[in-house]
């Protein structure tokens, strides 16, 4: 623990060899995280395939056309897209070690994430309230599984963001904190990538 703590607080000024080794370690960590995200990508693909196969199996219940409000989902999409953008702006601030700017952009990102999640849960609650929960039909099961899994990822991202902000506050931009910020930003951009397909396949194509 002792050694770990000293390393945690190591300033960026190191001799070239030591720094090179650390950067190698960091890029391995980031690559590992990227591989995890790719497996997540495959998991979402399975959920998309399930949805694509089951979306007509309404079992006498409502079809996608009848229960989704497209303008509502469009706003949801813009909220998530903007949060992805502000997350990027926050990373630029982190790059220049501007703490206040990072806090500003990350809090904006956090709030947009919360708005997105609240909108999604409102939609879910409305559906369940009308008796169209995931038990209603194969279509609704696959819908809740796919969109719910994405929402769960967003929720985890929000928790992660809080932890990161506390770390930046307490330790400032050490090597470890910077690396974690990079990992988080990749994760958050990835969630927006998945949402492009949810928006197109689940909401737009079903409305045709």
């Amino acid at each position, binding site marked *: 623990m002792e050694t770990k703590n000293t390393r945690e607080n190591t300033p960026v000024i190191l001799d070239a060899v030591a720094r090179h080794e650390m950067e190698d370690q960091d890029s391995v960590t980031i690559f590992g995280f990227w591989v995890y995200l790719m497996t997540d990508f495959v998991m979402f693909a399975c959920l998309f395939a399930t949805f694509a196969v089951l979306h007509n199996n309404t079992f006498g219940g409502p079809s996608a056309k009848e229960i989704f409000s497209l303008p509502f989902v469009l706003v949801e999409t813009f909220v998530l897209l903007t949060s992805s953008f502000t997350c990027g702006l926050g990373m*630029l601030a982190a790059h220049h070690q501007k703490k206040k700017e990072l806090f500003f952009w990350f809090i904006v990102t956090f709030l947009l994430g919360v708005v997105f999640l609240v909108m999604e849960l409102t939609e879910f609650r409305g559906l369940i309230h009308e008796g169209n929960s995931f038990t209603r039909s194969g279509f609704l099961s696959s819908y809740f599984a796919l969109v719910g899994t994405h929402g769960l990822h967003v929720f985890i991202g929000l928790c992660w963001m809080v932890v990161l902000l506390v770390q930046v506050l307490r330790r400032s931009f050490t090597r470890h904190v910077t690396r974690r910020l990079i990992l988080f930003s990749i994760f958050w951009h990835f969630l927006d990538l998945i949402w492009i397909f949810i928006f197109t396949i689940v909401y737009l194509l079903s409305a045709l």
Partner: protein
Amino acid sequence: MNKMANHPTSLNTDKHHAHLHRGVHRGPLEAYTLGFLLSILFTATAFFLTVEHAFPVSLLIALLMLLALSQFAIQLLCFLHLSREVKPRWHIFVFAVMTAAVLIIVIGSLWIMHNLNTRMMPSAKDMTAYMQSQTGI
């Protein structure tokens, strides 16, 4: 200085710390803004095409998928900076392999289930005829 490797969320970090204290770079901000604006444009276009039923359904499906894939590519380039990675491009390699897996899963599932639906779900009339022929009623 290599402008490409200079970015905080760039998947390649080797150059990142070396350039941590350099001046303001305009490249990344422009990339984010461009990605953001294009994404808004593509999302809005897809939305209006759907709401207005601007084209026949089959053409509309193709257009919507094209818009989604373009936006996917734009965000990979502008937000995740996939193209900024230097050799050996392991991130892109893993991404390509996983994309292949994704395509096999999605297209394979749809293909198989479509075949099952058309070949193994006869209409009630066919079913009755078949049962009659089998049981000799």
